[in-house]
Protein backbone atom coordinates (compact mmCIF):
# COMPACT_ATOMS: atom_id res chain seq x y z
CA UNK A 1 0.00 0.00 0.00
CA UNK A 2 1.55 3.31 -1.03
CA UNK A 3 1.09 6.62 0.70
CA UNK A 4 -1.67 7.75 -1.61
CA UNK A 5 -3.54 4.53 -1.10
CA UNK A 6 -3.24 4.91 2.67
CA UNK A 7 -4.63 8.41 2.52
CA UNK A 8 -7.55 7.18 0.51
CA UNK A 9 -8.09 4.41 3.05
CA UNK A 10 -7.96 6.95 5.83
CA UNK A 11 -10.50 9.20 4.23
CA UNK A 12 -12.90 6.34 3.57
CA UNK A 13 -12.55 4.34 6.74
CA UNK A 14 -11.11 6.48 9.50
CA UNK A 15 -13.04 9.69 9.02
CA UNK A 16 -16.44 8.05 9.40
CA UNK A 17 -15.09 6.12 12.37
CA UNK A 18 -13.89 9.33 14.00
CA UNK A 19 -17.19 10.95 13.23
CA UNK A 20 -19.05 8.10 14.86
CA UNK A 21 -16.82 8.31 17.92
CA UNK A 22 -17.48 12.05 18.20
CA UNK A 23 -21.20 11.45 17.89
CA UNK A 24 -21.04 8.83 20.61
CA UNK A 25 -19.25 11.28 22.93
CA UNK A 26 -21.76 14.01 22.14
CA UNK A 27 -24.64 11.66 22.85
CA UNK A 28 -23.23 10.60 26.21
CA UNK A 29 -24.57 13.44 28.38
CA UNK A 30 -27.96 13.15 26.73
CA UNK A 31 -28.05 9.46 27.56
CA UNK A 32 -26.98 10.25 31.09
CA UNK A 33 -29.91 12.56 31.69
CA UNK A 34 -32.27 10.00 30.18
CA UNK A 35 -31.00 7.17 32.34
CA UNK A 36 -33.85 7.45 34.81
CA UNK A 37 -36.65 5.84 32.91
CA UNK A 38 -39.10 3.03 33.31
CA UNK A 39 -40.52 0.39 31.03
CA UNK A 40 -43.95 1.05 32.43
CA UNK A 41 -46.13 2.73 29.79
CA UNK A 42 -46.49 6.49 30.08
CA UNK A 43 -49.66 8.47 29.51
CA UNK A 44 -49.91 11.48 27.22
CA UNK A 45 -49.15 13.71 30.20
CA UNK A 46 -45.75 12.07 30.66
CA UNK A 47 -46.82 10.36 33.87
CA UNK A 48 -46.63 6.64 34.46
CA UNK A 49 -49.98 5.10 33.63
CA UNK A 50 -51.82 3.14 36.27
CA UNK A 51 -50.68 -0.42 35.53
CA UNK A 52 -53.16 -3.26 35.07
CA UNK A 53 -54.29 -4.82 38.34
CA UNK A 54 -51.84 -7.41 39.65
CA UNK A 55 -50.51 -8.56 43.00
CA UNK A 56 -46.92 -7.82 41.97
CA UNK A 57 -46.10 -5.30 39.23
CA UNK A 58 -42.45 -5.19 38.18
CA UNK A 59 -42.08 -3.66 34.70
CA UNK A 60 -38.35 -3.00 35.10
CA UNK A 61 -37.46 -6.47 36.42
CA UNK A 62 -36.02 -5.73 39.81
CA UNK A 63 -37.28 -9.09 41.03
CA UNK A 64 -36.18 -12.48 39.76
CA UNK A 65 -38.92 -14.71 38.38
CA UNK A 66 -38.68 -16.91 41.46
CA UNK A 67 -38.84 -13.96 43.86
CA UNK A 68 -41.82 -12.50 42.02
CA UNK A 69 -43.66 -15.82 42.11
CA UNK A 70 -42.77 -16.16 45.79
CA UNK A 71 -44.19 -12.72 46.63
CA UNK A 72 -47.32 -13.41 44.60
CA UNK A 73 -47.86 -16.70 46.42
CA UNK A 74 -47.32 -14.96 49.74
CA UNK A 75 -49.89 -12.27 48.93
CA UNK A 76 -52.38 -14.79 47.55
CA UNK A 77 -51.94 -16.97 50.64
CA UNK A 78 -52.62 -14.05 52.96
CA UNK A 79 -55.72 -13.08 51.01
CA UNK A 80 -57.01 -16.64 51.24
CA UNK A 81 -56.43 -16.91 54.97
CA UNK A 82 -57.18 -13.38 56.19
CA UNK A 83 -59.05 -11.82 53.27
CA UNK A 84 -57.06 -8.59 53.06
CA UNK A 85 -55.74 -7.62 49.65
CA UNK A 86 -52.19 -6.33 49.35
CA UNK A 87 -50.32 -5.43 46.19
CA UNK A 88 -46.78 -4.38 45.32
CA UNK A 89 -45.49 -2.13 42.54
CA UNK A 90 -41.75 -1.76 42.00
CA UNK A 91 -40.43 0.38 39.16
CA UNK A 92 -37.40 2.50 38.32
CA UNK A 93 -38.93 5.92 38.64
CA UNK A 94 -42.22 7.78 38.66
CA UNK A 95 -40.84 10.23 36.07
CA UNK A 96 -40.72 13.19 38.41
CA UNK A 97 -44.18 12.75 39.86
CA UNK A 98 -44.20 12.51 43.66
CA UNK A 99 -44.53 8.85 44.64
CA UNK A 100 -47.47 9.76 46.87
CA UNK A 101 -49.41 11.05 43.86
CA UNK A 102 -48.62 8.04 41.73
CA UNK A 103 -49.54 5.62 44.52
CA UNK A 104 -52.76 7.46 45.13
CA UNK A 105 -53.74 7.29 41.48
CA UNK A 106 -53.17 3.55 41.56
CA UNK A 107 -55.03 3.12 44.84
CA UNK A 108 -57.98 5.12 43.52
CA UNK A 109 -58.12 3.04 40.34
CA UNK A 110 -57.59 -0.41 41.86
CA UNK A 111 -59.55 0.03 45.08
CA UNK A 112 -58.05 -3.17 46.46
CA UNK A 113 -59.67 -4.42 49.64
CA UNK A 114 -62.81 -6.43 50.18
CA UNK A 115 -66.14 -4.87 49.35
CA UNK A 116 -67.79 -3.58 52.49
CA UNK A 117 -64.56 -4.05 54.47
CA UNK A 118 -62.08 -2.16 52.33
CA UNK A 119 -58.95 -3.78 53.74
CA UNK A 120 -56.31 -3.05 51.12
CA UNK A 121 -52.65 -2.07 51.29
CA UNK A 122 -50.46 -0.93 48.42
CA UNK A 123 -46.67 -0.91 48.53
CA UNK A 124 -44.88 1.19 45.92
CA UNK A 125 -41.12 1.32 45.37
CA UNK A 126 -39.38 3.70 42.95
CA UNK A 127 -35.85 2.34 42.96
CA UNK A 128 -33.91 5.13 41.26
CA UNK A 129 -35.88 7.77 43.13
CA UNK A 130 -34.92 5.97 46.35
CA UNK A 131 -38.50 6.38 47.48
CA UNK A 132 -40.97 3.90 48.82
CA UNK A 133 -44.45 4.19 50.21
CA UNK A 134 -47.02 2.10 52.01
CA UNK A 135 -50.58 3.19 51.27
CA UNK A 136 -53.17 2.01 53.74
CA UNK A 137 -56.86 1.97 52.86
CA UNK A 138 -59.00 3.86 55.28
CA UNK A 139 -60.45 0.86 57.12
CA UNK A 140 -56.95 -0.39 57.97
CA UNK A 141 -55.68 2.96 59.22
CA UNK A 142 -56.44 1.80 62.75
CA UNK A 143 -54.50 -1.43 62.34
CA UNK A 144 -51.63 0.25 60.49
CA UNK A 145 -51.24 3.84 61.70
CA UNK A 146 -48.88 6.10 59.77
CA UNK A 147 -46.20 5.66 62.39
CA UNK A 148 -46.34 1.87 62.14
CA UNK A 149 -46.10 2.07 58.35
CA UNK A 150 -43.17 4.45 58.67
CA UNK A 151 -41.46 2.09 61.11
CA UNK A 152 -41.93 -0.86 58.74
CA UNK A 153 -40.29 1.11 55.95
CA UNK A 154 -37.45 2.26 58.19
CA UNK A 155 -36.72 -0.97 60.00
CA UNK A 156 -37.75 -3.72 57.60
CA UNK A 157 -37.59 -2.39 54.06
CA UNK A 158 -34.94 0.33 53.83
CA UNK A 159 -32.06 -1.83 55.18
CA UNK A 160 -32.68 -4.41 52.44
CA UNK A 161 -33.15 -1.75 49.76
CA UNK A 162 -29.79 -0.23 50.72
CA UNK A 163 -28.06 -3.43 49.59
CA UNK A 164 -30.34 -3.74 46.54
CA UNK A 165 -32.22 -6.69 48.01
CA UNK A 166 -35.65 -5.53 46.83
CA UNK A 167 -37.43 -8.87 47.13
CA UNK A 168 -36.10 -9.30 50.67
CA UNK A 169 -37.17 -5.81 51.70
CA UNK A 170 -40.65 -6.18 50.28
CA UNK A 171 -41.06 -9.62 51.82
CA UNK A 172 -39.95 -8.40 55.23
CA UNK A 173 -42.21 -5.37 54.94
CA UNK A 174 -45.13 -7.63 54.10
CA UNK A 175 -44.44 -9.75 57.18
CA UNK A 176 -44.68 -6.62 59.29
CA UNK A 177 -47.94 -5.58 57.64
CA UNK A 178 -49.38 -9.10 57.93
CA UNK A 179 -48.68 -9.11 61.65
CA UNK A 180 -50.49 -5.80 62.15
CA UNK A 181 -53.47 -6.81 60.00
CA UNK A 182 -53.74 -10.18 61.71
CA UNK A 183 -53.88 -8.46 65.10
CA UNK A 184 -56.95 -6.52 63.92
CA UNK A 185 -60.32 -8.21 64.30
CA UNK A 186 -61.37 -8.44 60.65
CA UNK A 187 -63.64 -11.04 59.09
CA UNK A 188 -61.55 -14.04 58.01
CA UNK A 189 -60.60 -14.69 54.41
CA UNK A 190 -62.34 -16.83 51.87
CA UNK A 191 -60.19 -19.85 52.76
CA UNK A 192 -61.76 -20.04 56.20
CA UNK A 193 -65.36 -19.14 55.65
CA UNK A 194 -66.29 -19.82 52.09
CA UNK A 195 -65.12 -22.51 49.69
CA UNK A 196 -65.61 -20.22 46.71
CA UNK A 197 -62.87 -17.57 46.71
CA UNK A 198 -64.40 -15.74 43.75
CA UNK A 199 -67.44 -14.74 45.77
CA UNK A 200 -67.08 -12.03 48.35
CA UNK A 201 -69.43 -11.73 51.25
CA UNK A 202 -69.65 -8.81 53.64
CA UNK A 203 -69.77 -8.99 57.43
CA UNK A 204 -73.29 -10.37 57.45
CA UNK A 205 -72.46 -13.07 54.95
CA UNK A 206 -74.26 -11.43 52.08
CA UNK A 207 -72.89 -11.63 48.59
CA UNK A 208 -71.58 -8.35 47.15
CA UNK A 209 -73.43 -6.52 44.37
CA UNK A 210 -71.52 -7.57 41.28
CA UNK A 211 -71.19 -11.16 42.40
CA UNK A 212 -74.86 -11.25 43.11
CA UNK A 213 -75.69 -10.12 39.60
CA UNK A 214 -73.44 -12.81 38.21
CA UNK A 215 -74.90 -15.54 40.41
CA UNK A 216 -78.52 -14.59 39.88
CA UNK A 217 -78.38 -15.52 36.21
CA UNK A 218 -78.33 -19.32 36.71
CA UNK A 219 -81.42 -18.96 38.92
CA UNK A 220 -83.19 -17.14 36.12
CA UNK A 221 -82.17 -19.77 33.60
CA UNK A 222 -83.36 -22.74 35.63
CA UNK A 223 -86.44 -20.92 36.91
CA UNK A 224 -87.49 -19.86 33.42
CA UNK A 225 -86.99 -23.37 32.09
CA UNK A 226 -89.07 -25.03 34.82
CA UNK A 227 -91.60 -22.20 34.78
CA UNK A 228 -92.17 -22.49 31.06
CA UNK A 229 -92.63 -26.25 31.32
CA UNK A 230 -95.08 -26.02 34.21
CA UNK A 231 -97.00 -23.17 32.60
CA UNK A 232 -97.61 -25.30 29.54
CA UNK A 233 -98.92 -28.08 31.76
CA UNK A 234 -100.80 -26.16 34.46
CA UNK A 235 -101.18 -22.61 33.13
CA UNK A 236 -100.29 -19.43 35.04
CA UNK A 237 -100.47 -21.06 38.53
CA UNK A 238 -97.59 -23.31 37.50
CA UNK A 239 -95.45 -20.28 36.75
CA UNK A 240 -96.41 -18.75 40.12
CA UNK A 241 -95.34 -21.90 41.98
CA UNK A 242 -91.99 -22.05 40.21
CA UNK A 243 -91.39 -18.31 40.66
CA UNK A 244 -92.16 -18.51 44.37
CA UNK A 245 -89.91 -21.53 44.82
CA UNK A 246 -87.00 -20.01 42.95
CA UNK A 247 -87.38 -16.73 44.83
CA UNK A 248 -87.40 -18.55 48.17
CA UNK A 249 -84.24 -20.50 47.33
CA UNK A 250 -82.55 -17.35 46.02
CA UNK A 251 -83.42 -15.41 49.18
CA UNK A 252 -81.86 -18.18 51.29
CA UNK A 253 -78.72 -18.46 49.15
CA UNK A 254 -78.10 -14.71 49.04
CA UNK A 255 -79.30 -14.08 52.59
CA UNK A 256 -81.44 -11.28 51.24
CA UNK A 257 -85.22 -11.23 51.01
CA UNK A 258 -85.17 -8.45 48.44
CA UNK A 259 -83.02 -10.47 46.05
CA UNK A 260 -85.45 -13.37 46.50
CA UNK A 261 -88.45 -11.22 45.64
CA UNK A 262 -86.72 -9.80 42.59
CA UNK A 263 -85.61 -13.21 41.37
CA UNK A 264 -89.09 -14.61 41.91
CA UNK A 265 -90.67 -11.76 40.02
CA UNK A 266 -88.24 -12.06 37.11
CA UNK A 267 -88.77 -15.82 36.92
CA UNK A 268 -92.53 -15.26 36.86
CA UNK A 269 -92.22 -12.81 33.98
CA UNK A 270 -89.81 -15.09 32.16
CA UNK A 271 -92.16 -18.03 32.56
CA UNK A 272 -95.06 -16.06 31.11
CA UNK A 273 -93.28 -14.22 28.32
CA UNK A 274 -90.31 -16.44 27.67
CA UNK A 275 -87.30 -15.56 25.61
CA UNK A 276 -87.84 -11.83 24.81
CA UNK A 277 -88.02 -11.00 28.50
CA UNK A 278 -84.95 -13.06 29.19
CA UNK A 279 -82.97 -11.12 26.64
CA UNK A 280 -84.14 -7.89 28.23
CA UNK A 281 -82.95 -8.96 31.67
CA UNK A 282 -79.62 -10.04 30.22
CA UNK A 283 -79.13 -6.61 28.72
CA UNK A 284 -80.17 -4.89 31.94
CA UNK A 285 -78.27 -7.16 34.29
CA UNK A 286 -75.33 -8.27 32.17
CA UNK A 287 -72.68 -5.85 33.36
CA UNK A 288 -69.05 -6.45 32.56
CA UNK A 289 -66.51 -7.37 35.19
CA UNK A 290 -65.47 -3.70 35.55
CA UNK A 291 -62.44 -3.04 37.71
CA UNK A 292 -62.69 -6.49 39.21
CA UNK A 293 -60.54 -8.58 36.94
CA UNK A 294 -56.78 -8.66 36.96
CA UNK A 295 -54.02 -10.93 35.81
CA UNK A 296 -53.08 -14.10 37.64
CA UNK A 297 -56.52 -14.62 39.12
CA UNK A 298 -56.26 -11.48 41.27
CA UNK A 299 -59.56 -9.77 41.56
CA UNK A 300 -59.98 -6.49 43.39
CA UNK A 301 -62.74 -6.42 45.96
CA UNK A 302 -63.28 -2.77 44.99
CA UNK A 303 -63.77 -1.72 48.62
CA UNK A 304 -60.51 0.00 49.44
CA UNK A 305 -60.75 3.76 49.97
CA UNK A 306 -57.22 5.15 49.72
CA UNK A 307 -57.43 8.61 51.20
CA UNK A 308 -53.86 9.29 52.16
CA UNK A 309 -53.16 6.90 55.04
CA UNK A 310 -49.76 5.27 55.32
CA UNK A 311 -46.25 6.61 55.15
CA UNK A 312 -43.43 7.37 52.76
CA UNK A 313 -39.77 6.69 53.27
CA UNK A 314 -36.42 7.02 51.59
CA UNK A 315 -33.20 5.09 51.70
Amino acid at each position, binding site marked *: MNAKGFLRFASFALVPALFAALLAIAAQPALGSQARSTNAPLGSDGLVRVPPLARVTDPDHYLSAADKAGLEAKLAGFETSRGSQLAVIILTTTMGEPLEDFAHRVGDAWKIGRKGIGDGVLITVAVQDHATRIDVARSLEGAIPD*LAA*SRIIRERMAPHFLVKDYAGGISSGLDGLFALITAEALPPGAGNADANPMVQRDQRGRVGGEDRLRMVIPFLFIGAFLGNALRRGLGAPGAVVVAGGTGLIASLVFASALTGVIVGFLVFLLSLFGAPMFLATQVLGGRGPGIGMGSGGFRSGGGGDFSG*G*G*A*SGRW
Partner: protein
Amino acid sequence: MRQMRQLGLAILAASVLAGCGYNGIQSREQAVQSAWAEVVSQYQRRADLIPNVVNSVKGQANFEQETLTQVIDARAKATSVQVTPELVNDPAALQKFLQAQGQLTSALSHLLAVSERYPTLQANQGFQDLRTELEGTENRISIARNRYIKAVEDYNVYISQLPQNLTAMAFGYKAKPQYTVENEKAIETAPTVDFGSGKK
Protein backbone atom coordinates in the same frame (compact mmCIF):
# COMPACT_ATOMS: atom_id res chain seq x y z
CA MET B 1 -112.01 10.53 45.98
CA ARG B 2 -110.40 13.75 47.11
CA GLN B 3 -107.76 11.79 48.95
CA MET B 4 -107.09 9.81 45.82
CA ARG B 5 -106.62 13.01 43.87
CA GLN B 6 -104.25 14.43 46.48
CA LEU B 7 -102.24 11.25 46.42
CA GLY B 8 -102.13 11.41 42.63
CA LEU B 9 -100.95 15.01 42.77
CA ALA B 10 -98.25 14.15 45.28
CA ILE B 11 -97.01 11.28 43.11
CA LEU B 12 -97.07 13.54 40.06
CA ALA B 13 -95.15 16.28 41.86
CA ALA B 14 -92.58 13.78 43.11
CA SER B 15 -92.01 12.31 39.68
CA VAL B 16 -91.79 15.74 38.06
CA LEU B 17 -89.24 16.83 40.64
CA ALA B 18 -87.24 13.65 40.19
CA GLY B 19 -87.31 14.17 36.44
CA CYS B 20 -86.04 17.71 36.83
CA GLY B 21 -82.98 16.52 38.68
CA TYR B 22 -84.03 17.70 42.13
CA ASN B 23 -82.82 14.44 43.64
CA GLY B 24 -79.61 14.65 41.67
CA ILE B 25 -78.94 18.14 42.98
CA GLN B 26 -79.65 16.97 46.51
CA SER B 27 -77.28 14.03 46.34
CA ARG B 28 -74.53 16.09 44.74
CA GLU B 29 -74.91 18.78 47.34
CA GLN B 30 -74.60 16.11 50.02
CA ALA B 31 -71.44 14.86 48.32
CA VAL B 32 -69.98 18.37 48.41
CA GLN B 33 -70.85 18.73 52.09
CA SER B 34 -69.26 15.44 53.07
CA ALA B 35 -66.15 16.12 50.98
CA TRP B 36 -65.92 19.47 52.72
CA ALA B 37 -66.30 17.87 56.14
CA GLU B 38 -63.36 15.64 55.30
CA VAL B 39 -61.22 18.63 54.29
CA VAL B 40 -62.06 20.43 57.51
CA SER B 41 -61.38 17.41 59.70
CA GLN B 42 -57.98 16.88 58.11
CA TYR B 43 -57.09 20.55 58.64
CA GLN B 44 -58.25 20.15 62.23
CA ARG B 45 -56.07 17.08 62.64
CA ARG B 46 -53.10 19.13 61.52
CA ALA B 47 -53.93 21.97 63.87
CA ASP B 48 -54.09 19.45 66.72
CA LEU B 49 -50.62 18.14 65.91
CA ILE B 50 -48.92 21.52 65.85
CA PRO B 51 -48.65 22.18 69.61
CA ASN B 52 -46.68 18.93 69.97
CA VAL B 53 -44.41 19.89 67.12
CA VAL B 54 -43.85 23.33 68.60
CA ASN B 55 -43.05 21.85 72.00
CA SER B 56 -40.54 19.36 70.68
CA VAL B 57 -38.84 22.03 68.59
CA LYS B 58 -38.74 24.41 71.58
CA GLY B 59 -36.62 21.84 73.37
CA GLN B 60 -34.01 22.28 70.70
CA ALA B 61 -31.45 24.85 71.85
CA ASN B 62 -31.18 28.01 69.70
CA PHE B 63 -33.84 26.94 67.19
CA GLU B 64 -34.73 29.74 64.78
CA GLN B 65 -37.31 31.68 66.77
CA GLU B 66 -38.72 33.42 63.71
CA THR B 67 -39.71 30.16 62.01
CA LEU B 68 -41.34 28.96 65.19
CA THR B 69 -43.34 32.17 65.69
CA GLN B 70 -44.53 32.02 62.10
CA VAL B 71 -46.01 28.58 62.68
CA ILE B 72 -47.64 29.59 65.95
CA ASP B 73 -49.12 32.74 64.41
CA ALA B 74 -50.32 30.94 61.29
CA ARG B 75 -52.00 28.27 63.42
CA ALA B 76 -53.71 30.88 65.55
CA LYS B 77 -54.97 32.61 62.44
CA ALA B 78 -56.16 29.41 60.81
CA THR B 79 -58.03 28.19 63.87
CA SER B 80 -59.63 31.60 64.42
CA VAL B 81 -61.72 31.20 61.26
CA GLN B 82 -65.16 29.93 62.18
CA VAL B 83 -65.85 26.80 60.15
CA THR B 84 -69.51 26.41 59.37
CA PRO B 85 -71.20 24.30 56.70
CA GLU B 86 -72.27 27.57 55.04
CA LEU B 87 -68.63 28.37 54.40
CA VAL B 88 -68.75 26.36 51.18
CA ASN B 89 -71.37 28.75 49.78
CA ASP B 90 -69.56 31.96 50.66
CA PRO B 91 -66.66 32.71 48.29
CA ALA B 92 -65.11 35.42 50.46
CA ALA B 93 -65.18 33.39 53.68
CA LEU B 94 -63.93 30.29 51.89
CA GLN B 95 -61.07 32.27 50.41
CA LYS B 96 -60.13 33.59 53.83
CA PHE B 97 -60.19 30.13 55.37
CA LEU B 98 -58.12 28.59 52.58
CA GLN B 99 -55.62 31.42 52.70
CA ALA B 100 -55.11 30.97 56.42
CA GLN B 101 -54.65 27.22 55.97
CA GLY B 102 -52.31 27.79 53.03
CA GLN B 103 -50.14 30.07 55.14
CA LEU B 104 -50.01 27.42 57.85
CA THR B 105 -48.95 24.84 55.25
CA SER B 106 -46.08 27.02 54.09
CA ALA B 107 -44.99 27.95 57.63
CA LEU B 108 -44.95 24.26 58.56
CA SER B 109 -43.01 23.12 55.52
CA HIS B 110 -40.51 25.88 56.23
CA LEU B 111 -40.20 24.67 59.81
CA LEU B 112 -39.59 21.10 58.66
CA ALA B 113 -36.99 22.29 56.16
CA VAL B 114 -35.20 24.31 58.84
CA SER B 115 -35.30 21.37 61.25
CA GLU B 116 -33.03 19.44 58.90
CA ARG B 117 -30.19 21.69 60.02
CA TYR B 118 -30.35 20.43 63.59
CA PRO B 119 -28.77 17.01 63.95
CA THR B 120 -30.18 16.50 67.45
CA LEU B 121 -33.71 17.01 66.11
CA GLN B 122 -33.02 14.57 63.30
CA ALA B 123 -31.93 11.99 65.85
CA ASN B 124 -34.91 12.67 68.12
CA GLN B 125 -37.38 9.83 67.61
CA GLY B 126 -40.26 11.82 69.06
CA PHE B 127 -39.73 14.62 66.59
CA GLN B 128 -39.35 12.21 63.68
CA ASP B 129 -42.63 10.53 64.65
CA LEU B 130 -44.37 13.90 64.69
CA ARG B 131 -42.86 14.61 61.32
CA THR B 132 -44.31 11.37 59.94
CA GLU B 133 -47.70 12.28 61.36
CA LEU B 134 -47.52 15.75 59.85
CA GLU B 135 -46.53 14.41 56.44
CA GLY B 136 -49.37 11.90 56.59
CA THR B 137 -51.79 14.68 57.45
CA GLU B 138 -50.56 16.89 54.62
CA ASN B 139 -51.01 13.96 52.27
CA ARG B 140 -54.56 13.40 53.51
CA ILE B 141 -55.31 17.11 53.18
CA SER B 142 -54.21 17.16 49.55
CA ILE B 143 -56.35 14.13 48.73
CA ALA B 144 -59.35 15.49 50.63
CA ARG B 145 -58.96 18.77 48.76
CA ASN B 146 -58.83 17.06 45.39
CA ARG B 147 -61.96 15.10 46.21
CA TYR B 148 -63.69 18.27 47.32
CA ILE B 149 -62.70 20.04 44.11
CA LYS B 150 -64.13 17.13 42.11
CA ALA B 151 -67.35 17.13 44.12
CA VAL B 152 -67.85 20.87 43.61
CA GLU B 153 -67.09 20.53 39.92
CA ASP B 154 -69.60 17.71 39.60
CA TYR B 155 -72.23 19.77 41.42
CA ASN B 156 -71.56 22.96 39.46
CA VAL B 157 -71.67 21.21 36.10
CA TYR B 158 -74.82 19.34 37.07
CA ILE B 159 -76.83 22.40 38.11
CA SER B 160 -75.76 24.33 35.03
CA GLN B 161 -77.27 21.78 32.65
CA LEU B 162 -80.83 21.44 31.39
CA PRO B 163 -83.21 20.71 32.94
CA GLN B 164 -81.52 20.85 36.34
CA ASN B 165 -80.63 24.52 35.92
CA LEU B 166 -84.36 25.38 35.98
CA THR B 167 -84.87 23.31 39.11
CA ALA B 168 -81.80 24.88 40.68
CA MET B 169 -83.13 28.33 39.87
CA ALA B 170 -86.57 27.54 41.26
CA PHE B 171 -85.15 26.22 44.54
CA GLY B 172 -82.32 28.74 44.86
CA TYR B 173 -79.34 26.40 44.38
CA LYS B 174 -76.30 28.38 43.31
CA ALA B 175 -72.95 27.30 41.94
CA LYS B 176 -70.42 26.77 44.72
CA PRO B 177 -67.11 28.63 44.80
CA GLN B 178 -64.24 26.48 43.61
CA TYR B 179 -60.80 26.29 45.17
CA THR B 180 -58.71 28.94 43.50
CA VAL B 181 -55.76 26.74 42.73
CA GLU B 182 -53.45 29.49 41.44
CA ASN B 183 -53.70 31.54 44.63
CA GLU B 184 -53.24 28.47 46.78
CA LYS B 185 -50.12 27.47 44.89
CA ALA B 186 -48.62 30.94 45.15
CA ILE B 187 -49.22 31.12 48.89
CA GLU B 188 -47.98 27.63 49.62
CA THR B 189 -44.83 27.56 47.55
CA ALA B 190 -43.64 31.07 48.36
CA PRO B 191 -41.15 30.19 51.12
CA THR B 192 -39.68 27.15 49.36
CA VAL B 193 -39.09 28.95 46.08
CA ASP B 194 -36.50 31.41 47.36
CA PHE B 195 -33.94 28.72 48.16
CA GLY B 196 -30.92 29.86 46.17
CA SER B 197 -32.99 31.13 43.28
CA GLY B 198 -30.60 34.06 43.02
CA LYS B 199 -33.21 36.64 43.98
CA LYS B 200 -31.85 40.09 44.78
